[in-house]
């Protein structure tokens, strides 16, 4: 322990998942996350009581996750934007069936086939449901390889705790870059026993069903309300964010993932020019850290949201700020990463 290893982001996710007890991985190759699929193949195909399948499609992969998760094992799939679109049907079923699982999206430029460069264009899809119906994933947004590791491990715990699919929302840059990581000894967390709902064959008990439908709208409405209660609890308990230099800042940038890394450089560059700015980096995108943003808006009257999209998270920031401060937006799209210089230029425009 305490030992640091140099690892590529995508492979670090795989190692973290295995260390978190995930033995069932189903995926389909797509750039820029293929190293993760390959890593799971290399490891899981050599393990007992484990399975790796290169599925025929992302649709099949998420449904294999559905089946495995129904039996109580930790299961995962990963992809990048176009493949995540295909998984949405399955994710919606899993959300109503309340099965724990982890889905990784290393976003790339879109829409359509787009390109294979880093992007944040899937924020709406990840945080607002993505598939049909009223549901939410828990969405975690790492911004370093170390955080990919830590959040992947947390993702499995959160999935089990809430019986909810959890998405790791990264991008091609995080997946491809190499950084030193540490696989920390983790405190044991108390998780609910799965014994009362998993599908294992009905020996010594009544048969169980995992049935994500009910044709009686009054029953289905009740299920929806139950999901709503769960999401409320998640919003109360699981919000995570990082706040940097928010005291006495003239302007707060809100950014997540790769962009937040760049913003940290912008903060020190700005300081050299005598401009004092801060950062709020949501680590959970759902639940969104709306309270801290709202509270910060009492003191800071200018916000700038920077994203690698045409403006998606900015809507949540506006809702959080709720008119108390000015919310500006700067975004690059199509797989372009904004530079510190252009972000600083935007900051100056706002001041």
């Amino acid at each position, binding site marked *: 322990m305490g030992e640091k290893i140099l690892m590529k982001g995508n492979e670090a996710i795989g190692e973290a998942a295995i260390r978190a007890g995930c033995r*069932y991985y*189903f995926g389909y190759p797509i750039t820029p996350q293929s190293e993760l699929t390959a890593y799971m193949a290399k490891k899981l195909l050599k393990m007992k009581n484990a*399975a790796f*399948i290169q*599925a*025929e*499609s992302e*649709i*099949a*992969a998420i*449904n*294999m*996750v*559905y*089946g*495995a*998760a*129904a*039996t109580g*094992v930790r*299961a995962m799939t990963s992809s990048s934007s176009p493949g995540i679109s295909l998984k949405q*049907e*399955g994710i919606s*079923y899993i959300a109503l069936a309340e099965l724990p699982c982890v889905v990784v999206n290393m976003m790339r430029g879109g829409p359509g086939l787009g390109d294979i460069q880093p992007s944040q264009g899937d924020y709406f899809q990840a945080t607002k449901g993505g598939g049909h119906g009223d549901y939410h994933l828990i969405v975690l947004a790492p911004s370093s390889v170390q955080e990919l590791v830590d959040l992947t491990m947390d993702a499995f715990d959160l999935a089990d705790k809430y019986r909810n699919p959890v998405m790791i929302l990264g991008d091609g840059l995080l997946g491809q870059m190499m950084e030193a990581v540490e696989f920390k000894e983790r405190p044991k967390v108390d998780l609910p026993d799965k014994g009362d709902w998993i*599908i*294992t*064959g*009905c*020996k*010594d008990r009544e*048969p*169980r*069903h*995992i*049935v*994500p*439908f009910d044709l009686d709208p009054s029953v289905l409405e009740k299920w929806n309300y139950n999901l709503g209660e769960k999401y409320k609890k998640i919003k109360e308990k699981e919000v995570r964010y990082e706040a940097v230099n928010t005291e006495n800042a003239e302007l707060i940038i809100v950014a997540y993932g790769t962009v937040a890394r760049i913003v940290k450089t912008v903060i020190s560059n700005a300081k050299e020019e005598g401009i004092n700015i801060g950062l709020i980096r949501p680590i959970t995108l759902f639940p969104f850290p709306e309270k801290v943003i709202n509270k910060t808006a009492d003191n800071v009257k200018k916000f700038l949201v920077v994203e690698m999209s045409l403006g998606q998270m900015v809507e949540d920031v506006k809702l959080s700020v709720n008119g108390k401060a000015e919310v500006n937006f700067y975004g690059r799209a199509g797989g372009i990463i904004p530079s510190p210089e252009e972000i600083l230029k935007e900051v100056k425009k706002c001041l």
Partner: protein
Amino acid sequence: MKKVFGRPVSLTDVPFTYCPGCHHGIAHRLVAEVLDEFGVRENTIGVCPVGCSVFAYLFFNCDMVCAAHGRAPAIATGIKRSRPDSIVFTYQGDGDLASIGTAEIVHAANRGENITVIFINNAIYGMTGGQMAPTTLAGQITQTSPYGRDPKTMGYPIRVSEMLSTLKGATYISRVALNKPANIIKAKKSIKKAFQVQLDRKGFSLVEILSSCPTNWGLSPVEASKWVEENMIPYYPLGEFRVPEEVA
């Protein structure tokens, strides 16, 4: 007194909700009898489709998971890979298996997943009110082939068993019918062989069951069984298409 004809333990006592003369009920019963005979009910996990048999979870007295339309073989794969000692079967209609779920069934068969597939070919989409299925016969009138299926623009009816039996991964594939007692007896034997293959860990097994849908065919139950004999069986010949040597 010995009970000679009772409800199999592998069926619940919930009455079937299928239309009069529908063969889904017979197919359920045969599968349940086989599960009883192998004594595996308590170790069985079934996957029901989207189609008229979406309610199969109410009728099979074992653990059941409901799939999205066509995805049952992928879900069964996930279940079986994580519980290789469980008996896992899917129950799917022809729209489910041969149209929207074509990729999933082909690749589950090709991987030789050790699962059993019960495939109900009734040449129609029953649940949604009688649209054309990939198995709808040439010339057959449905809601979406109101002038009869024209193979030139709508494709020819797919012979799923023949197609899948070209795959090396498939171990047991057969086609049976339920339109008369002699065929029902053969169907039961075939379903039993299919589960035997799984119990012996020999790989993928599928039984295609030619089945009636009197409601959407617009026929009486008796006429529907006759329609199976006269129209379906000539195009969809009964028999075994793939058999492992030992169970042949």
